[in-house]
């Protein structure tokens, strides 16, 4: 990843995207990594009847989808020692095992404050293999002097 500077950036620049195919094992692994062992992610038997999302499969953690999207931003920003200060997320569809999630991002806003305080807003999104929107996230990334 080459070094980015605030001035070299343009609104509309695309960030390199990443993708992952998620399985039940991925959910278990993330549960361990996050201490979030909610059965809706981890317990296929229970979910087949309880179905919080109205479907009988376990689904990915919202926080994992969020982490995937934020990884697009960190891969892009950290080589330039830029820091992420504010992030929001919205999860739009449950993500069952077997989904291939592609996360991408674009620079949507350039905030010209002052050296050391300039920041960009990056719109991140996660889509499945059919191009349906799974989640969106917005990150504010501050660039160093």
């Amino acid at each position, binding site marked *: 990843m080459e070094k980015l500077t605030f001035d070299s950036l343009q*609104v509309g620049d695309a960030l390199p995207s990443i993708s992952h195919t998620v399985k039940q094992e991925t959910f278990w692994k993330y549960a361990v990594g996050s201490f979030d062992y909610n059965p809706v992610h981890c317990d296929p038997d229970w979910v087949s009847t309880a179905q919080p999302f109205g479907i009988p499969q376990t689904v990915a953690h919202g926080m994992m989808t969020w982490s995937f999207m934020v990884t697009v931003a960190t891969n892009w920003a950290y080589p330039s020692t830029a820091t992420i200060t504010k992030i929001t997320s919205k999860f739009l569809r449950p993500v069952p095992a077997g989904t291939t999630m592609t996360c991408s991002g674009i620079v*949507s*806003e*350039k*905030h*010209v*404050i*002052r050296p050391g*305080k300039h920041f960009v*807003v990056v719109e991140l999104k996660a889509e499945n293999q059919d191009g349906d929107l799974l989640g969106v996230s917005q990150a504010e990334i501050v660039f160093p002097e």
Partner: protein
Amino acid sequence: MNRINFERFFETEKQKIFGTDFFADAEDYEAWDEIDFESQEDIPGEQTFEVKAEDLKYYAAGVLDDNPFMTDEEYARNSPYGGLIPHPVFLTQITFWCIGVKGRGNWIRTPGARNPGQEVEIYEPFRVGEIIHIKMRPHDRWIKRKKYYLNYKIDFYNQDNVKKACWIVELVLPKSKEDIRKFIKGIRGVEV
């Protein structure tokens, strides 16, 4: 664009003395690319605003709102409010008045500016008799889809320094003085 179009609608003292020609000093308005974001201390408005019943009443009339709480002093006095209360967006009138023509924040008068949306918070309704002063400072400035956004955070205080409201006032502006000059000459100075 002369005043006669407006004069027939003048009802309040303030309306009669306010500078209605936004072109007059447009060259000196703060431009998007010249705003100083360095100093973060509060900037006062050019003048203060003493709230009179006529100001409230004619703001409501100006937005075609005939709600008696805002327009009928007698009705309002007998209501639990005990007196006139303003339309919640009355602070628009206060802001244009307090910012005036020469002071910081006069970019809100820029010919060619567009209003993308606002965010207002009201802590206490303004009341007749209060003397309002504003404190403002640059809050955010960005580019999105080729449009140049600027906003100032404006806090409204009364004579006892009670904070009455807060408004993040935001406009899409011409980028530079040069673009403002185009607009002054009647030529489109944005997204060209």
